[in-house]
């Protein structure tokens, strides 16, 4: 367990599966080589986009709901200590037990300890981003405890020994035929005649997990919402695996980030309208379960909640970035993102992929952690994610903010000016005066020379090489726009058509 001598220096960053171990451009390059992945992602993200638009356009007050959702979350962040204490008092008063975890290791140790205390060596699991973030399954396995994922997509990923690539549909990168092949290969006692029909595949998962559900003594879950004024927890799901885990076992252990609170029961009416429509594009998800501590004679009698910091307080300390904590994990931002659609979730390294991951991961770990400083650049800043976000997180603004944090963090470290510093200073000198720019433009023919007979520059030197890595630059024109303008507007004898040479003004 983490121990500190005296006061730790703040902020304290998160640990666990929050890091890109390879820079985003490199990882994206690797993933882009997989044409099947791109086809699967293109199909799935376009399906969900259309569904989301349909159900969102049905609601006349969608924008009002977004405004309310955004303000509620802002208020939660501003009042977080007070709301956490209120939630704790209510949950505890109704028989629940609260544990606090500073980081991933501490949370893992608490969960393993609670499972061990029951005398069991296995647990059933509901899909949870928090437990994915802390690497709970791997930790439990080391401790000799088997954790069985029961969500269909998590099951596919677990059986394939793969990693999730999407926060809602972890196996979004697999198509139905690949899923069938995984089941045939890895699922004990599966019907060898299994087809790739999704209904048949879902049926196979039902048969496979049924016995586990009916005999499990311990379940581990995440939570979508926690209501401070009542001490209530909520899990939103589709398949009924959540209900099985939340209802049948004797012991229930929930792991939840501290930011998941909502102040009041009334606030649920906002989020239960925003979340299903934004995530699966349904008016309502098939099942939502809510529980408040222990209910005698109904459901688990041994109810625990692990409240997790793991870098959330660090994200909260960033005034520009803290609204990333408003995220309700719907995944709408990744479904509309042109970058995610092509690279998939694995390219982001962290448990949290896509636009939200590109801001959340570096905010939780600090920009200097491993390769996370490459994530804020994994965007064209088109703004589709901001438009889709049900709680209006301004992801493009935070991306730009984190890019500046990244640049500043590097500037501090190096005494010698970098190529970027030199380039920016040169640009500042040149662009601050028309005369200087004019002088530099005289050098354009040199660029034409460098481009050669095919009129393309295919390789730039130094840091500019990144630009030509995946595209060519056309040869510069013979004359600059400013020269052309001068001739056009100050030489009345010259006919405009003659002065304008289309080939030279791309």
């Amino acid at each position, binding site marked *: 367990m983490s121990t500190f001598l005296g006061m730790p220096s*703040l902020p304290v960053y998160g640990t666990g599966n929050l890091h890109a171990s390879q820079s985003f451009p490199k990882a994206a390059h690797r993933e882009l080589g997989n044409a099947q992945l791109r086809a699967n992602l293109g199909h799935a993200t376009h399906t969900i986009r259309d569904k989301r638009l349909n159900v969102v356009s049905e609601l006349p007050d969608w924008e009002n709901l977004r405004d309310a959702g955004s303000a509620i979350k802002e208020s939660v962040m501003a009042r977080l200590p007070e709301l*956490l204490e209120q939630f704790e008092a209510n949950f505890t008063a109704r028989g629940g037990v609260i*544990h606090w975890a500073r980081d991933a290791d501490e949370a893992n140790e608490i969960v393993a300890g609670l499972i061990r205390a029951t005398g069991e060596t296995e647990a059933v699991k509901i899909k949870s981003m928090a437990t994915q973030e802390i690497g709970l399954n791997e930790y439990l396995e080391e401790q000799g405890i088997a954790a069985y994922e029961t969500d269909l997509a998590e099951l596919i990923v677990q059986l394939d020994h793969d990693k999730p690539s999407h926060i809602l549909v972890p196996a979004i990168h697999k198509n139905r035929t690949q899923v069938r092949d995984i089941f045939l290969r890895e699922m004990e006692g599966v019907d060898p005649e299994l087809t790739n029909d999704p209904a048949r595949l879902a049926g196979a998962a039902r048969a496979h997990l*049924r016995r586990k559900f009916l005999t499990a003594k311990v379940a581990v879950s995440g939570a979508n919402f926690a209501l401070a004024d009542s001490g*209530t927890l909520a899990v939103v799901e*589709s398949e*009924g695996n959540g209900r099985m885990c939340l209802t049948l076992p004797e012991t229930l252990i929930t792991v939840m980030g501290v930011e998941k609170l909502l102040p009041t029961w*009334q606030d649920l009416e906002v989020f239960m309208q925003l979340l299903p429509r934004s995530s699966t594009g349904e008016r309502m998800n098939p099942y939502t379960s809510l529980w408040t501590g222990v209910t005698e004679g109904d459901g688990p009698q041994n109810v625990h909640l692990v409240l997790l910091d793991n870098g959330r307080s660090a994200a909260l300390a960033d005034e520009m970035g*803290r609204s990333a904590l408003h995220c309700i994990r719907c995944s709408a931002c990744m479904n509309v993102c042109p970058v995610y659609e092509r690279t998939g979730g694995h390219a982001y390294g962290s448990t949290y992929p896509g636009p939200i991951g590109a801001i959340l991961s570096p905010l939780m770990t600090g920009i200097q952690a491993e390769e996370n400083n490459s994530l804020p650049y994994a965007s064209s800043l088109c703004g589709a994610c901001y438009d889709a976000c049900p709680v209006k997180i301004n992801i493009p603004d935070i991306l730009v903010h984190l890019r500046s944090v990244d640049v500043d963090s590097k500037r501090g470290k190096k005494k010698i000016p970098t190529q970027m510093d030199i380039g920016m200073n040169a640009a500042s000198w040149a662009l601050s005066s028309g005369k200087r720019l004019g002088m530099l433009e005289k050098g354009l023919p040199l660029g034409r020379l460098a481009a050669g007979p095919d009129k393309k520059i295919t390789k730039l030197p130094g840091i500019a090489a990144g630009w030509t890595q995946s595209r060519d630059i056309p040869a510069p024109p013979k004359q600059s726009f400013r020269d052309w303008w001068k001739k056009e507007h100050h030489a009345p004898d010259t006919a405009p058509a003659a002065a304008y040479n289309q080939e030279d003004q791309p």
Partner: protein
Amino acid sequence: MSAREEILDRIRTALKDTPEVPVIPRGYRASSQLDEAELIELLVDRLIDYKARVSIVDTADVPAKIAELLAGAGSYVVPAGLDAGWLTGPELEQDSRRRTDSVTAPLSVAELDGIDAVVTGSAVAVAETGTIILDGSPNQGRRAITLVPDHHICVVKVADIAGILPEALGRINGTRPLTMISGPSATSDIELERVEGVHGPRTLDVIIAR
């Protein structure tokens, strides 16, 4: 310092700029303004869209409808507090196929696994989203009984239909063990296409009682 104190301390330090607590703009709809016939029509439309099976009957005909829907069931369970009068008539009275479950005399999970169907009431329904909310009241019983059997027959009284979610949640006590059900169990996990029938009941019959 305990983990609790330390985390709360970190959070307080993170908020040292004392961000403003905004007023929540609740400009969204608080009610649907639909009349009874419109509520029923909307609820039915949404339930069918989820592949639930729906029948609308007069309250007096609820027992006959339940008997009809249970025709193929070898066994079924009811909560001890199911509305008196729903299990009347020649087929259901003294029915040997029936098991009764209560908090004081609960059926085991293995017993429930051997039962084909379950009949319950409901707390409130949301027309706009096709959602039925169970709150563990005596006519709905423990959560396990509506989960393990593969066929759920659920009676919704017309008076319990709310237009939209804010109206419905306003009628519910949030500290009860709640289950919100919108159609039979389903998944969108393969290529994001919705497929019905995973771990929860694969058949959901809704009887709307006028």
